[in-house]
């Protein structure tokens, strides 16, 4: 824990999105290596995003709804020729 934690974490998106230069990423990673609370927080952020992606697969009901929409939207004009 250091007085720099809040300031470091304000830059977390650039770290997650691979936006900054190598030196800044290294500085961010170095802080995490030395600061267990920040390290845990960033791991939890990454895990939360992983869970969101894991849970994101369209459900059976989404797929069925999409099929209905595709059929309904293409059919009338096809009938008209």
């Amino acid at each position, binding site marked *: *824990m*250091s*007085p*720099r*934690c*809040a*300031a470091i974490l*304000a830059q*977390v*998106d650039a770290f*997650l999105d691979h936006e900054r230069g190598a030196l800044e990423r290294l500085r961010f990673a170095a802080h995490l290596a030395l600061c*267990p*609370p*920040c390290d*845990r*927080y960033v*791991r*939890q*952020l990454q*895990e*939360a*995003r*992983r*869970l*969101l*992606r*894991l*849970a*994101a*697969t*369209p*459900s059976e*009901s*989404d*797929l069925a*709804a*999409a*099929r*209905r*929409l*595709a*059929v*309904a*939207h*293409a*059919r009338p*004009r*096809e009938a008209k020729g």
Partner: protein
Amino acid sequence: MVLVLLRALLTLSAMTNAEAALLERLQRDEPAAWRQLLERHGPALVAYARRICGDAAQAEELVQDAIVAIHGGIDRFEGRCSVKSWLYRAVHNRAIDALRRQRRFVDVDEAREDADWADRFDGGAWRAAPPPWCGSLDQRIDAKRALAVVERALPRLPTQHREVLWLKEVEGLDAVEICDALGISPANLRMCLHRARRALQQAVALELGSAAAEALTNLEA
């Protein structure tokens, strides 16, 4: 001639060649092109709408309305944004209208969120380390449990947080596409995404904080 070409190049610059070809076929109103568009993007659009409005039947209706509107306005679409952001924008607009009408739109309370976050620090340092999560990080949790956690965590978030997270983390839209879809500026998006990720961490923490995680494990055992 050069001007016409230049203009075509500029208007289509947000689109790939494949998208431009598809757009041409859509504008000729080829049913097969509409089917292709909906087969490719339909499932993700419905899933997105369902996460935003929280209801499967309403999600289907919203996407249906969006497609009808898109069909009506296809001639005016010039390809200034990608096909994806154009589709998401149509669904987003209708979802937000519906939520507002039903008084289910949840505004972001930026001041409170920022104050809560600031409260976790003292002079820039953590007051207390974030509590560990059970059943996660160490023992990677699987898709079924992830779904259970996310189903409970997502509704806790303000509407815009849910949208930004879905478009960025799940759909992988780039910043320009998200700004086009949601009608916000890049600076606004950066702040939204920052707050949304923070809020997602907190919402998941509520589910995976020790007591909640044990209850979840027992429930699913």
